[in-house]
């Protein structure tokens, strides 16, 4: 159980970091391109 929690916490951290990086790169494209559908 301790292993599960140790893994889960770290998965969350890594996913958050990767997600934030992706989000920032994505949103930075908006200023350059036209927004909207």
């Amino acid at each position, binding site marked *: 159980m301790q*292993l599960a929690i*140790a*893994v889960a916490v*770290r*998965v969350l951290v*890594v*996913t958050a970091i*990767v997600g934030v*990086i*992706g989000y920032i*790169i*994505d949103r930075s*494209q908006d200023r*350059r*391109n036209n927004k909207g*559908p």
Partner: protein
Amino acid sequence: MNLANLTHLHLLLNHFPTVGFLIGLGLFLAAIVGKSENLKRASLVIFFLIALLAIPTYLSGKAAQQAITGRPDVPEALIEMHQDSALLALVFMELTGFVAWLGLWQFRRISRPARWNLTAVFLLSIITFGLMARTAIMGGEIRHPEIRTEGTVGSDTEWLKSASIATFVNTTAWAWPLNETIHFIGLSLVLGVVLVVNLRILGVMKNVSFAALHRLLPWGILGFAVNLITGILFFITIPEQYTQNVALHWKVVLMLIAAANVLYFTLFEEAWALGPGDDAPPTAKVIAASTIFLWIGVIYFGRMMPFIGGSF
């Protein structure tokens, strides 16, 4: 493939991240000086493709090590140094490839890469070339004592050591499951983007222009990058289970083809021109269907590694 073939493959492939990359770098500089947009794009493509080829180069290096390890005339310390130098060079090579791809993606969307992109590619490629050259010299010294200089053997200055990484993962209980989980998350991101983009070409959601879905490609590349990192971590930790694993060989081959295939969706006019309501030409549909199969094949061979490969 047996160890001898894999070693030969390593000796063949290592020309790409060295000589090939230098040619790419030369073209890139010529493109900047000559202000040629076409040449800039060509050199970014070369950087991207060579970054892909660097992967099997690194992996086959492990097999080469296994083929000659233990022989009296082979200095183990030199091999370790070469391997660690190669890992660092690989990191920067993949970064260069990623930023180069981003530039190509921007080229398609706004007819030029972002201002920072060319500078970043330039800096990263210079660093990458330096690290690759260093790795290459060490590699040569392994089998060519005539080019070794005094003090070559035994210096322990590597910043990124495969042995330390392997020891850490092997002794830390949460490390391997964490790596596996992140690998699955990256897989989901890749497959999600692959499906959405290719389904459009196959005729689903025709009212959406391809150019809009093109915007999703960086997320797919992000997933790929995450899986490349976690994949290399698996490999470094227990290389014995991987180097001669047939399933892994197939996985890498399919993965390289699929990754090179990304350039079709990133750059080619045939895909980009697909507007709302347009039906894609038959060749595009064949490519789209093949792409989906390629990535499912990658997942297949990945999942089959304990079974087909038989080494777990």
